[in-house]
């Protein structure tokens, strides 16, 4: 049995058992009744002790959402979602989990080991419960290699010394209300699209980052994130603000298969880069993709957008998408500041019955703005993958330039790959270039690798990683290695 199947079964088992045990106790305290109406939103806002303005903002989003229709233009098919059959608020209190790694299923740990994930992080991912008396926020088994509570504290100190704010967005609402109020919804308005409006109405938590003028964030926020941010829920909201001349690198997600009971995910990420600021936002997404027959799996409807507000600002999106049954995601850049730069590097892998419709939008408003799009799509099994991208040169975008390259790799003869580029140019001096290729993993390449001693799966992994190299090299170093292994694991069993 390929490891990926085993993993899925483990995850499924964990998912089911947690569902069975999770919500039977103390229902009224922990969970809102199913369904979405103004009362649900008032309840969420009240539970989170939010200020009045935020409640009003949520309600406005909800009213906008009511008048909107679910988008149908993406090349994905799924049964209609009953939005009234979803719990929109559940306290992050969990059922008892395993007490230490010894109690975690060895098969799951094997997958973690394959990915090279450190022991203390494995514990978090597997949902190991803290021993009594351990700090609530960081449920790490005390028998782990080192005490990550202290590590996390060190991170916090380093960051606050530099003046960087990095906290859950619910904390930011409480502690930095002016900043949140100024920027929340300023890039993705509450009524931007169906899923963004839904998120704005019911988001429960997410991350908030503020890097003040002239500060280079002293560390990759990834490290911290991986240890801290979990159970942020299905409607995650992230807001990152980087002031003049400041910079940050942020990594979202994790290469390890996360246990997750929620099928519908609709996150919103907003980035704001001021003059000479730079934001590097990397995503590795490996949520449960459903089983080999396309049963189950996460629906991932995400709105991600960055605003390059200041001159010479730069926003770079890098994503490796291997999970989820359905991915609907277009990390975008609004290039307003003169000479600002937007980049999008993407690898999307689909296998079995997965469907992905993903790409980017580069909106060039300012003079001499530049954008680069490198999208690599790999389809295997019976999956279907679409690159959908928009490059729009507005009338004032003199001298703006875009370069787009979309490459699709097919494995097997039952999958599909599609490229849908939209180009709108309203400025004669702007230049747009688009290149696209579609190819198969050739028998020649496979045989060549195998005749040198590589197993079939190692050969596929090597060829696929080579195909994605331009994108993978954009990932922060520590994750590039994991991402390479992840690509290979995602495609296990796809050849032969």
């Amino acid at each position, binding site marked *: 049995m390929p490891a990926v199947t085993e993993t899925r079964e483990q995850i499924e088992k964990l998912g089911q058992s947690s569902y069975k045990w999770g919500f039977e106790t103390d229902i009224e305290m922990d969970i809102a009744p199913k369904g979405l109406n103004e009362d649900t939103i008032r309840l969420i806002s009240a539970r989170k002790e939010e200020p009045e303005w935020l409640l009003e903002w949520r309600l406005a989003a909800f009213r906008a959402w009511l008048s909107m229709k679910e988008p149908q233009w993406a090349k994905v098919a799924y049964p209609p979602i009953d939005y009234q059959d979803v719990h929109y608020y559940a306290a992050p209190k969990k059922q008892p989990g395993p007490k230490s790694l010894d109690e975690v299923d060895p098969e799951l740990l094997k997958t973690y080991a394959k990915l090279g994930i450190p022991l203390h992080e494995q514990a978090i991912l597997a949902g190991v419960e803290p021993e009594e008396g351990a700090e609530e926020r960081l449920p790490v088994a005390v028998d782990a290699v080192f005490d990550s509570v202290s590590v996390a504290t060190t991170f916090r100190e380093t960051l606050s010394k530099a003046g960087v704010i990095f906290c859950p967005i619910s904390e930011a609402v409480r502690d930095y209300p002016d900043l949140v109020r100024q920027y929340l919804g300023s890039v993705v308005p509450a009524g931007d699209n169906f899923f963004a409006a839904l998120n704005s109405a019911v988001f429960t938590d997410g991350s908030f980052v503020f890097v003040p003028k002239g500060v280079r964030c002293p560390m990759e926020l990834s490290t911290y994130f991986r240890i801290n941010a979990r159970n942020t829920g299905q409607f995650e909201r992230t807001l990152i603000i980087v002031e003049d001349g400041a910079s940050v690198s942020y990594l979202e997600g994790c290469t390890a298969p996360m246990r997750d009971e929620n099928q519908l995910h609709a996150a919103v990420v907003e980035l704001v880069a001021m003059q000479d600021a730079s934001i590097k936002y990397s995503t590795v997404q490996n949520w449960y993709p459903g089983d080999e027959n396309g049963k189950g799996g996460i629906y991932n409807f995400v709105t991600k957008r960055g605003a390059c507000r200041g001159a010479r600002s730069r926003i770079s999106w890098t994503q490796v998408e291997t999970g989820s049954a359905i991915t609907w995601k277009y990390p975008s850049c609004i290039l307003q500041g003169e000479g600002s730069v937007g980049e999008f590097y993407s690898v999307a892998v689909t296998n079995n019955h997965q469907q992905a419709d993903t790409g980017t939008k580069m909106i060039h408003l300012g003079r001499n703005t530049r954008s680069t799009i490198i999208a690599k799509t790999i389809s295997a099994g019976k999956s279907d993958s679409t690159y959908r991208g928009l490059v729009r040169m507005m009338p004032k975008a003199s001298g703006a330039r875009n370069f787009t390259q979309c490459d699709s790799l097919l494995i097997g003869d039952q999958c599909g790959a599609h490229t849908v580029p939209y180009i709108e140019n309203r400025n004669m001096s702007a230049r747009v270039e688009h290149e696209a290729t579609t190819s198969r993993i050739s028998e020649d390449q496979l045989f060549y690798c195998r*005749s040198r001693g590589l197993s079939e799966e190692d050969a596929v992994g*090597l060829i696929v990683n*080579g195909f994605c190299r331009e994108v993978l090299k954009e990932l922060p170093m520590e994750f590039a290695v994991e991402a390479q292994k992840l690509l290979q694991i995602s495609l296990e069993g796809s050849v032969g």
Partner: protein
Amino acid sequence: MSDFLKISGLHASIETDGGAKEILRGVDMTIPAGELHVVMGPNGCGKSTLAYALAGREDYEITSGSVAFKGKDLLELEPDERAAAGIFLAFQAPVELPGVNNANFLRTAVNAVRRARGEPEMDAVAFLKAVRAATKSLSMSDEMLKRNVNVGFSGGEKKRNEVLQMTLLQPSFAVLDETDSGLDVDALRIVADGVNRLRGPEFSALVITHHKRLLDYLSPDRIHVMANGRIVHSGGPELAEKIDQEGYAAFLADAA
């Protein structure tokens, strides 16, 4: 050990638009340990098919016959298992692997084979040392290690890269499929040196070539003439001289 490699009655065909086409029609050949044999023959006689069949390429269907390698049934093994068992094929047209770093590819291959042979894997330092020594002996620049496998390589560089792989993988049986074609005389000598360095009582090779020139550097033990999917004549090294002067006509008459 006389039956180091023994090919008996090997038939192989390939699927074409017009149905299965038989290319090997009963190849018999025995290569003792430590010997270097040569296969010569006109274009389309099945030389490359024989090479692929030995390395395990799937689109060639073995319809009958057997290949025993060191007492094992070679045809039962997957291509990577054959590599681990000590078989190496130097490709006539080495394949490009875009985005795959050459050094990384070599190290992955070397360690895959070492693992399968129950030998310890080479760490980065040991590998670097080994690969530097090998490139030096092949007059290759280290710069080729940083490039992607065969991408943008000249014909000569590709062939040398094959010999580099062979040197590092340390096979006990190497098949060289027209490794000499398109090489200038200096490159030819380097390739021959690469093969000669491996020669010993536990190493055998099958060299497929059209030209006598490479053989001048290799001192082969035996020459086989292939025509129409069969070995039609075998003889000592002097046979190469005869073919060089007279062509294949005499053998083709026999094969018909």
